[in-house]
């Protein structure tokens, strides 16, 4: 970045590749393996017929401006530094040491010197008929504007082939103290200059006869010179003078167009004289300094400059242009038409010399008078504190002691200017009395002052009360009227806040989090009044529920019977078993016995003997023999042993023989059950380690 308040000038910044189609070939040389070649098509694009508006930073003179530009070259500032060199313009070969030739040129033509296409035309028609740009498929827009000029104008006004690199350069500026500072601009800018000083020409004041400046309208066009560099003049062709001609236009086609009521008359060289005398604004004797102009149309040897000057005796744009502008619906189109007003001439039917067409990427018009540059404009600013009706200006004071001397004086309104509406009542403090309808419906006036005042104000100290509704900020002034300034500020602030749902939700969420943390503090303090207790209120640990839960547990632990209630009975009653019918029937049915037969035998031998002699009903009717039974038993013992060995607690200390039941297992030491016996047996079996 360049130093504060400085800038650096560079001759050119050439991009590594120009716009066009490229093919990228990639190979991977690998020993032993063949890797296929990678081919990619690459299109490098760049504006060609239309300059995107975001690439244009500024123009000088400003579009539609009026002012003294006669000492300054018009220019256009482009945001991409490489833009002027992104295409190959062609033309005669340049020397080995010559800088690269840009494809853009800024050409300034006066009203009447050329014609701008009234409507966008297909891009193929934007170049001189018969010519064609290389790679027609490379078009950034299907339509574009074009400029039609005669060979005379090209030779007299257009830059020479050798001038082109000289008229384009790159600037690197420091943008930190400008409004561009917070954007994504880097301060690198390409500047395209014109080669023509926009001059205003003198004309005779009808009242005094003194020469006064007559405004001249100019059109600045950023042209694409691709393929047509050859038609530009070269340095060798041109003669030079130390002064220029004070003429508005080197060639005025409007005059020819006006006289060409019928193109036949022009072509045949008749009929022009009468039309020229009929020219409505012709003002003979417009000053000796005015030089002759070129005769453009066949035989139309009229002093074209006279008419051109006279046409501008009224500094307003032509009524025709205004009419076009009002008819157009689109504002952009309206502005374009207005700007192109003086250049909308159809030249081809009556101009006999060769004409050329150039694509126009951007164009704007301005009016050259002899006053109104930056310096005079800023010095003529009305300076004052907000709330002053008439500020001061730095200019010649017509009522001062020396009307020629520039001094600072009160900027009183021009008595000849149309009267402005009366300003509303204004207080010294900057308060303005604005009409107000009170809540009861009465029409009244109320004082209002925005955030800007002519006097410094004291800010309320930090502890001052906070307004919750706007009515709290309404005040009554000593004159009995209401001052609604702060109330209005409150309301617009509330509305602006509500217009951003993200802000509203952030605000509500933050306050509830703050409140949650504060409540956790307070509740914790209340719960543990005795012991000072600092809860963890960081974002992670500010959970009030957890905090309260812990406190509750502590308190409950101290007096469980008060908090928790009566204890649980040690044992619950068992579930009742439902029996249907007499018990002996149920048992007999369950065991598959014949109850009647059993009773019969019990009657003779007794129940025990009867049961002993009754075979148990076996499913399938097979009996297990003793050998199978012994095998099953052995298997079962093994399995029990295996499970018990796995489940047995390992003896950690060989000294203690009895570690008791597994630690942590809730159990009551009582009579040993079968499992305990088993474990004891295992313990005994285990060899001492």
């Amino acid at each position, binding site marked *: 970045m360049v130093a504060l308040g400085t800038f650096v000038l560079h001759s050119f910044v050439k991009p590594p590749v120009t716009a066009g189609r490229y093919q990228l070939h990639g190979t991977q040389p690998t020993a032993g393996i063949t890797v296929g070649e990678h081919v990619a098509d690459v299109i490098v694009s760049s504006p060609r017929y239309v300059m995107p508006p975001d690439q244009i930073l500024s123009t000088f003179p400003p579009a539609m401006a009026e002012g003294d530009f006669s000492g300054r070259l018009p220019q256009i*500032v482009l945001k991409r530094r490489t833009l002027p060199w992104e295409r190959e313009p062609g033309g005669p070969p340049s020397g080995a040491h010559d800088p690269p030739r840009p494809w853009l040129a800024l050409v300034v033509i006066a009203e009447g010197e050329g014609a701008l296409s009234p409507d966008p035309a297909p891009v193929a028609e934007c170049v001189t008929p018969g010519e064609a740009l290389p790679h027609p498929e490379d078009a950034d827009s299907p339509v574009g504007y074009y400029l039609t000029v005669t060979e005379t104008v090209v030779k007299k006004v257009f830059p020479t082939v050798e001038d082109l*690199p000289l008229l384009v350069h790159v600037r690197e500026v420091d943008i930190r103290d400008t409004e561009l500072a917070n954007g994504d601009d880097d301060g690198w800018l390409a500047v395209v200059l014109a080669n023509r000083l926009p001059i205003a020409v003198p004309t005779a004041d009808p009242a005094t006869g003194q020469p006064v*400046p007559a405004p001249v309208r100019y059109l600045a066009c950023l042209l694409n010179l691709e393929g047509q560099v050859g038609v530009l003049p070269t340095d060798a062709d041109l003669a030079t003078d130390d002064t220029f001609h004070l003429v*508005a236009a080197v060639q005025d086609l409007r005059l020819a167009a006006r006289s060409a009521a019928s193109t036949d008359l022009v072509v045949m060289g008749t009929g022009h004289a009468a039309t020229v005398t009929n020219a409505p604004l012709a003002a003979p004797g417009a000053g000796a300094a005015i030089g002759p102009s070129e005769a453009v149309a066949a035989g139309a040897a009229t002093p074209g400059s006279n008419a051109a000057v006279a046409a501008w005796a009224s500094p307003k744009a032509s009524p025709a242009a205004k009419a076009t502008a009002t008819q157009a619906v689109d504002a952009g189109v309206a502005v374009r038409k207005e700007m192109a007003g003086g250049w909308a001439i159809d030249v081809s039917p009556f101009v006999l010399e060769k004409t050329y067409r150039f694509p126009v990427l951007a164009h704007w018009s301005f009016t050259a008078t002899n006053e109104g540059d930056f310096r005079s404009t800023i010095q003529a600013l009305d300076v004052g504190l907000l709330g002053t009706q008439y500020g001061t200006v730095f200019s010649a004071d017509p009522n001062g002691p020396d009307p020629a001397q520039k001094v600072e004086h009160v900027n009183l309104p021009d008595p000849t200017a149309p009267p402005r509406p009366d300003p509303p009542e204004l207080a010294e403090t900057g308060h303005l009395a604005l009409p107000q309808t009170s809540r009861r419906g009465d029409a009244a006036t109320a004082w209002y*002052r925005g955030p*800007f005042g002519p006097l410094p104000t004291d800010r309320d100290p930090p502890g001052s009360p906070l307004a919750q509704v*706007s009515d709290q900020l309404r005040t009554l002034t000593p004159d009995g009227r209401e001052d609604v300034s702060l109330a209005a500020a*409150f309301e617009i602030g509330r509305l602006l806040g509500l217009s951003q749902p993200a802000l509203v939700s952030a605000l509500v969420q933050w306050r509830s989090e703050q409140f949650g943390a504060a409540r956790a503090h307070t509740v914790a303090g209340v*719960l543990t009044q005795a012991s000072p207790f600092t809860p963890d209120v960081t974002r992670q640990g500010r959970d009030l529920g957890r905090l309260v839960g812990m406190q509750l547990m502590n308190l409950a632990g101290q007096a469980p019977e008060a908090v928790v209630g009566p204890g649980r009975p040690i044992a619950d009653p068992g579930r009742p078993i439902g029996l249907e019918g007499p018990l002996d029937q149920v048992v007999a049915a369950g065991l598959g016995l014949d109850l009647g037969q059993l009773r019969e035998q019990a009657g003779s031998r007794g129940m025990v003997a009867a049961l002993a002699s009754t075979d148990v009903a076996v499913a399938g009717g097979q009996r297990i023999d003793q050998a199978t039974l012994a095998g099953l038993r052995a298997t079962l013992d093994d399995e029990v042993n295996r499970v018990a060995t796995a489940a047995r607690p390992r003896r950690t200390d060989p000294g203690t023989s009895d570690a008791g039941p597994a630690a942590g297992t809730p159990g009551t030491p009582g009579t040993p059950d079968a499992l305990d016996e088993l474990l004891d047996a295992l313990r005994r079996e285990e060899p001492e380690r």
Partner: protein
Amino acid sequence: MSMTSFDAKVALDVQLRAAKVVVTDFTETDPDDGDHIVPGVIRRALAGLRLLSGVPFSYLVPDSSLLPPESVRFFYLDRNWTDALVQGVLSIGTFTSAERIQLEALREIIRAEVDEAERTIRQPGGEERLSGPGGAISGFVMRSKLVSGWPGLHVRAYRTDRQQDATIIPESDPDRLKVLRMERLAPAVLLVLFDGVPAVVHVEEPRQGIQFGALRPDAEPFSAARLLPLRDASTGADLPGQHVPVPFRRDSAGVIHMRELRDRIAGAPGTNVGGNTGMSVDANEFALEMLRFPFRQVFGDPANEPSQPLDDVFRPKVSFAMLEARFRAVIQP
């Protein structure tokens, strides 16, 4: 205290007491911004509002007679007005007494932290980050064709008048005031807010829009000749008394004969032009010669006369050394 006495009255009391508490260790940490109690999104939105972003223009300038065409109006910012604006935002979503009491408790922290955030809204690259308590804010509104015609005006404000200084001091210098906001509100209306009350304000022609041209004799408004004062292209210094008449193309209106002008510049002694490319004068050297000073308008007390002419303050320079090698690489492969 027993749990049985924890009834609704106590609960309400706890809520109200909690509302008055600000938990100061409940902070948001931003690596770029430091620790703050007020979350960054709220702080920045409120600071933006303090600098009046988004406020309708009719609230700022309620009547067009306060800002006539082609005028500049300086002002002091009414802090109470912007505080009321912020209070309006804060009032959103406060329905209960507890919420309002809580807002009362938070207001001083919000005020202090938003004061600090005001300076972080506009941070041009390369400038130091400034912080401190909120102070007076002043500024100006300019309604002029200057704003639309010369986009990117340079605006600088100084606490003390340092006209003698040719170098431009950074915003962190105690003599210079930080620009808090600079924005075009409309194509021709520029709003600038300064962090303090300046003694002088400089408004300068934009540098990327600096123009090129030649001088017309002041006394002759219709002179058809132009003079070009020359500079030494190696240092940028003026060559006093040296100038060449600007050549024009014969029979054309105001079109400069560039070739002849180039030759005249190259032929004049002491200009030190040419030699980097094949041309007698390079594009940037030509630009340097044709450069006209950006004009700097100083607004301030008329008694503070500049001790040096402003032309001395601005001295253009072209540094070739760093670019020469690159040029050669490009044009002589």
